[in-house]
Each structure stands twice: as C-alpha cells, then as structure tokens.
C-alpha cells in the first residue's frame, strides 16, 4: 500500500479533540459552529467527569440532602412531616439518572453540530495524527489541530491510597452503598467540603482535616472562618493545620493518624475516608513526550492561547492546570478554537474573572481577588460587607446566616473581588462576574436597581457598605 492510498483511508479533520468533558465538547461545538470539520475522541462517557462523576451528580446528591434537612425542620415553616427518612440507594439512583440524562444531552448536541464522535483512547502519533484504540483495534485519524482535553483524576499521596471500599475517592463517594456512621474527609477544597456537607447532613459523624490553616483555602479568609463556624455548628469536626500521616484499615473501619502543626499526633477511627487532596492531570499514554509536549507537575504546560509548544497541539481544562473548574475548561476551549479559526478580537482568559462555587451548606461563591490577595498586589482597598440577617428575603427563606463581601480598589473603584457565603450565593455570584467582566466601577453597581425582595439586594448593599452608604445595616 503506497503512502497516498494509506492517507486517503485515514479520516481527515480540521480539528480533533481528545476528551469530551466540558472543555472538549464545548471546544468541539464552537469549532463546528466556526465551520471546522471536527471530531471528538472519548474513551468512557461523553460529558467527562463533570457530567458523569463530578459537578452534576454531586449537585443531585446535595439537593437530596438539602430537602432532607428542610423536611427535618418542617415545623419551623409551619409544616408537619413526621418519620422523615431517606433511602440512600434511591438518592444515588436519582443522581445517576441525572448524570445519564445530561450525558445523552451532550451526545445529542455533538450530533446536532455534526461533530464526529469517535469512541476509544486517543494518543498523539506523529505530526497531525492521533491513533485511536478501541477494543484492541487501532485506527488513525489526522487533523491540522489537536486539542488535549483529557481532564484529571483524584490525586493520591503516599500512605493515602484509595481502596474503593473504606478509603474512597470522589468517584466512590458518589455511589455509596450505605451511609457511613462516621467519616473522615481529607482535604477541604470544594470537593472535600461538598462531600463532608452531604454526609454530615445525612447524619454521618464527619471530620474534616486540612493541611492549610483554614478550610476552603482559596476563598477569602473571612469566608473560610464563617464556613468553619457554620459547619461546626452543624456538628462537623474540623482540624486545620493538620495532616493525615497514615491510614490503617481493618475489617470494619479505618484508623487515621493525624498530626497537628505542633507535631502532636492523635488517632481517629472512622467508617470511611474520602480523599480529596487535589487532582492530577491525565497526561499518561497520550504520546506527549514523543510529540514534544511539556508536562510539569502533572499538567500540560500551555501559553495564553492554550498552545503547548508542539505545533498544532493545544491543551485545555484540567489537564492544563488549575483552576480545576468546568467553566474555565469550556472558556479555554472557546478561546483556543477561536484563535485556531482566526476569529478577530480573541483575548486570552483573564483568570481574575473566573467565578468559583462550592455547593456545601451554606453555599460559598467568589470571583476575583480576596482582600488579602488584593493587598498583596499593592491595591489600597475599600471593603464592603453585608450580612444575610439584614436582608428580608433571607429571613423569609429562613436562611439568616451568611455574608456578602466586596473588595474595591480605592483609587479606581474597580471591583477587585466578591466573596459570598449563604443560601443560593452560587446563583448570585454571576451578577458580580458580569459586572467585573464589563469593568464596572462602584458607581455603576450603586446605580443598578436590584429587585426587592431578593437575596441579590445584599449585593447592592455590600457595594454601598464599601463606601459607607449601606442602607439596611
């Protein structure tokens, strides 16, 4: 077979995306919209971790736990509900159903946009070629441009390896067979805290261990403190500045050796452990080294246009490094594809405009710089705060705990950051994300009319407070 004939048998695309998570499938759809002949290679589930084992199924679980909590407190709202119980199998089944529904939806979207879906495991094979392995069979596809969107998986630390039975990763924790009576969560980032919140609400005696000096360490210090207070009030035990030295499993439980910042050790015996100590990019078996793609500490190195340095090879989303957020991956995908397609006016992502949400109870959400980070960057700041207790809608909802904090540059009035804790703040944060992206100043936010009665009024009040003009406090 001569070279020409061989080439003609190879499927040729303008763009091939390896991975169909929120980075990959969004990149593929945008590419198709821009007229690129596009294929996506997926080894497992369309929609990636986000839809199948992350964002979406956890939200389904947390919704169940929220309703359970509310039903337990029904009398506070004048309702009676006695003998409120739950069936964990049904809760999990619902979560899986939601995930499957969305995965099907993404399949449909790809089809609708005429994106070719290739099932199998993709690997770079020379310039402009990806080999796809499926059930032992190998097929080559060629493309001018290749985007790596392979995502990430749970990080494991020496001595802290999951076994899938008593020591879980997020994936195991999503499909529990029963509710642990006691639980240790290692790591207090978004993933750890959401599972801690879920199982704690369902009655598990929950302990959280965090190596940093506060939980949710990427959030503003005041928000971390408020969250810790709220969780402890719900009965959660929290140990900050603490590491887990060792996990010893027996037939019935796990004994963890904890070491606090003074070097003092103690032991804790629990039913289950959830490891949530970060994630690591899926960079293996992709032929990266041969292709000349640099990998640094588990992540593909890219520039502001998601270029890897190897010609025609790009990387987006979790595999390309933090923040590990689905919406960051999607946005990177769009930027990367638009740059490839030569769309005018494309700009690199401004990471200070990426909002982050944690769906624990109470919820936490933020965008931009924390007060401390703003000061570190040399800003003189004006800080506004408004508590939920001062908001009519919050009180009517029975959610009087929480706060909205805003940070402005004193000189320019630029909104540098916004930080929230309390009911529904994950839905509120987008207001500030729009404001920040549009480069509004405090003046525009002050002149914006916020509807009454809503929780969003607190967003207005927080801005007013930064300038000594809050009305309801």
């Amino acid at each position: 077979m001569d070279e020409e004939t061989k080439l003609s048998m190879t499927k040729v695309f303008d763009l091939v995306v390896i991975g169909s998570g929120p980075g990959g499938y969004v990149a593929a759809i945008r590419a198709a919209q821009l007229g690129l002949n596009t294929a996506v290679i997926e080894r497992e589930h369309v929609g990636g971790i986000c839809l199948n084992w992350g964002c979406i199924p956890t939200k389904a679980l947390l919704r169940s736990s929220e309703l359970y909590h509310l039903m337990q407190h029904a009398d506070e709202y004048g309702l009676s509900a006695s003998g409120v119980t739950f069936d964990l199998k049904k809760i999990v089944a619902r979560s899986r159903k939601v995930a499957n529904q969305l995965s099907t939806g993404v399949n449909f979207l790809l089809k609708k946009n005429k994106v070719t879906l290739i099932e199998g495991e993709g690997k770079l094979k020379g310039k402009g070629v990806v080999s796809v392995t499926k059930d032992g069979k190998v097929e080559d596809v060629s493309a001018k441009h290749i985007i790596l969107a392979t995502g990430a998986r749970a990080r494991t630390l020496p001595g802290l390896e999951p076994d899938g039975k008593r020591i879980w990763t997020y994936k195991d924790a999503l499909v529990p067979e029963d509710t642990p009576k006691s639980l240790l969560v290692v790591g207090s980032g978004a993933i750890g805290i959401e599972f801690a919140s879920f199982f704690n609400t369902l009655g598990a005696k929950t302990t959280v261990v965090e190596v940093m000096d506060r939980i949710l360490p990427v959030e503003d210090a005041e928000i971390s403190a408020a969250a810790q207070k709220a969780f402890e009030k719900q009965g959660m035990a929290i140990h900050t500045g603490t590491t887990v030295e060792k996990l010893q499993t027996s037939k019935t439980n796990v004994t963890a050796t904890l070491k606090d910042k003074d070097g003092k050790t103690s032991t804790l015996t629990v039913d289950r452990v959830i490891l949530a100590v970060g994630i690591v990019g899926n960079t293996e078996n992709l032929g990266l080294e041969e292709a000349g793609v640099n990998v640094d500490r588990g992540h593909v190195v890219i520039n502001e246009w998601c270029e890897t340095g190897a010609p025609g090879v790009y990387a987006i989303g979790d595999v390309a490094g933090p923040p590990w957020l689905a919406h960051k991956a999607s946005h990177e995908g769009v930027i990367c594809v638009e740059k490839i397609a030569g769309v005018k006016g494309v700009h690199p992502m401004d990471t200070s405009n990426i909002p982050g949400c944690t769906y624990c109870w109470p919820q936490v959400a933020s965008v931009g710089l924390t007060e401390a980070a703003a000061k570190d960057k040399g800003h003189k700041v004006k800080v506004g705060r408004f508590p939920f207790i001062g908001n009519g809608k919050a009180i009517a909802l029975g959610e009087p705990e929480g706060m909205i904090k805003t940070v402005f540059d004193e000189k320019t009035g630029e909104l540098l950051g916004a930080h929230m804790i309390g009911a529904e703040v994950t839905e509120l944060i987008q207001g500030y994300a729009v404001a920040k992206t549009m480069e509004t100043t405090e003046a525009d936010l002050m002149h914006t009319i916020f509807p009454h009665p809503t929780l969003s009024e607190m967003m207005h009040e927080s801005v007013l407070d930064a300038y000594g003009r809050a009305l309801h406090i």
Partner: protein
Amino acid sequence: MPIPILMPALSPTMEEGTLAKWLVNEGESVASGDVIAEIETDKATMEVEAVDEGVIGKILVADGSEGVKVNTPIAMLLEDGENASAIEGASISAPAEAASKVEVAEQPTPAPQSAPAPTSTPSPSVTPISAVAGERVKASPLAKRLAAQAGIDIAAIQGTGPGGRVVKRDVEAASSGAVGLTPATATAEVIPLRAPETMPTDLGVKPGTYEEVPLDGMRKVIARRMTESKQQVPHFPLTVECEMDHLLALRKELNAKADGAYKLSVNDFIIRASALALKKVPGVNASYAGETMLLHHHADIAVAVAIEGGLITPIIWQAENKGLQDISESMKDLAARARDRKLMPEEYQGGTFSISNLGMYGIKEFSAIINQPHGAILAVGAGEQRPVVKGGALAVATVMSVTLSVDHRVSDGALGAEWLKYFKGYIEDPVTMLL
C-alpha cells in the same frame, strides 16, 4: 524600566506648553517633590515636581521648546540600579502614566476662603473634548475612570474589547507606552472650529519683509478662544454713558480716610457695581450650555489684565459678597501676580462675567469679545470731561462710556439694557453700592 516623565496638563484646557527651563541636568538624582522644570502654560509659568525618585537619565525635550504636547515624554527617569543604557529600547514615543508622574507644585492659594472650587462652576470650556464632539466613545466605566485619572483622552485610545470597546488593558497599554495612541490629528479633528493652521506663504507677504515670531502658549489660547467666541457667539453691543462726578468725589473721600490702609481705584467701583447689577438681573449672569443655560448663583467677575505678550483674566470670586476694600486688595494681588505669570489655574479659569477696561489708555469706547462661557463682557472707556445737557442747559461732567457685549443665546436686548440701567444707577449714585 526607565520611567518616562511626561509633559503635564496644568489646566483642563492646556493642550501644549513651552518647556521653559530645566532645573536639573542629566545624571542628577531627584527625590520625590524636587522641582525639576519650569513649564510655561497657556497663561502662567508653573513648576513641575518629580513624583518618583531616581536619576534623570535623559532629557528628551530641551529648554525653551515650544508647543510640547501634553503627555509627551520630556525626560526619562532611571530607577535604582539602572543606567542610561536602559533607555535604549524603552518606548518613549507614547504617553505614559501622565499626570501621575509629575505634579504641579502646590503653591499657597491666596484665593479668599469664600471662593468656590473652580470645579464647582459649571464651565462648558472644560467639557472633555470627546463630549464636545458629541461622539459616543465605547469604553468600559473602569477604562473611562482610569483614562481620566491618567489624563489621557479616551477618544484617542484604540479599543480591543468587544466591538472596539476601550477596556482596562487598553488604557493600561496606552499609559505604559506599550501601544501608541491614535495619531494626534484624530484628536484635533474632534475639536470644533479650531483656528486653522495658517502658512506664512499663504498670506501673500513678501519673504524677507517681516520677522516671524512664534506664538507662545498664551497667544495661541487667546487666538483660539477669541476666534471661537466670535464665530460661535452672537454678540450684540449696548452702550451707555455714565456720569462719574459723584463716584470720583466719593472715591476721593474714602481714600482720604484710608490712612494708607487701601487705595480704591475707579475699576474697583466698576467691579462692585457690575456684581450688584448681575444680582439684580440674573439673566445676564448666565452661560449658554447647549440644551440648557446656566444661571450662576454668584457673580464671579473676571477682570482682564494686560501683561507682556497678552492678557489674562484673574477672577474676583463672589464679587457681590465683597466690599470695595476687599475687591481692591484682591485685585492688586491678582494683577501683580498675573504680570509675573504666577497665577494658579483656579485663579483665572472659570468666572461668569468679564470686565475689560481700556480707560487708562484714553479709549473712549469699544466693544469687547465675550470670553466663553461668560454670557457678557463689559468694555469700559475713559472717564473724561464732556459737555452734557442738564435741565436744558449745557454743562460739563465727567462721563464714562461703557459697552456691554451680550451673548444673544442667553439674553436679549431689553435684558442687557436693564442691566446697564442698574449699573449706571450704581455708578452715578455710588452711595447705593456701599449698602
């Protein structure tokens, strides 16, 4: 990186200035607050202070350079540990963080306590250029504020946001010199009715028959503003004659009692009479502002003072609230400092009404050009003995002709006449203005 020191905008109307004199040399260290240069602006000479400390690496604009555009780099400041070679490659072609790098030396302002801040006087003349043109500049709120703080005209910045919107990064790039502003002509185009550049060769003057004198900043401003006023403002002049004998007698009497504490001039009486007349007829104390007119609360009276090479109009703020002695003292101080070109911008910018007095030159009467945004100007002629008819008989009186030029967009003939009736009343019966 070397920091460019920029030509500062010392007043809202300043577009260019003359770098009169450097007070530091290349290689000299400067600390924050050191006076580094003198700049001759539209109407005054100002000192420029260094804001950052460092070493003057290179002087880019020599002593005596005229027409230096605001925000042009005039020198490069080396930071700690840098040497002159660092300047090579550093962009000096575009404005950097304008007003933040140089500050006008703060001089004690002798303005009276009651004087309002100049910004509180609505003044169309300081409206941003882009707004005058009526063109909407697409820019984010933050970008607008950053540009204003950096003293950069946002209309001159190329936007890179959605639909060409000017966003923060564009202003930062413009102020750091990373990218150029659109050519200066783009800015010039949006200034309406700017005096056209006139070429000597176009005037039909024979070469060699004249000396060509460059216009200084003040002359250029006078040329532009007076041309604008004559072209834009429908002037009409109204003249009356005022008998001065009572006023001269009162002046003599008051000055005799002064014991050296004050010496009132005829002009001081004219200022006071004008202020009181403006309170009686507020319609003359007005500024045309497009869709609206501004009726000013106070009579802030600008008085033209002839100085070498031109004139300047220091302002007696809230003249209606000042007595003759107060007016007299303020005027002496302002006039003296005006001749030395040491007035601060807030002492000559703004105002609601002007007075131009050429009586001392023997001018009998004239009509003056309105100094926008003022609604009127009073031209004062010489007080001289003239024959007058009194009770059917000829008599001799000291008579002064005054001509009020009025902006017909804000007031009409009858209103101007009414103002002159009150003015004449105060002058001819001066005791009433002592009330």
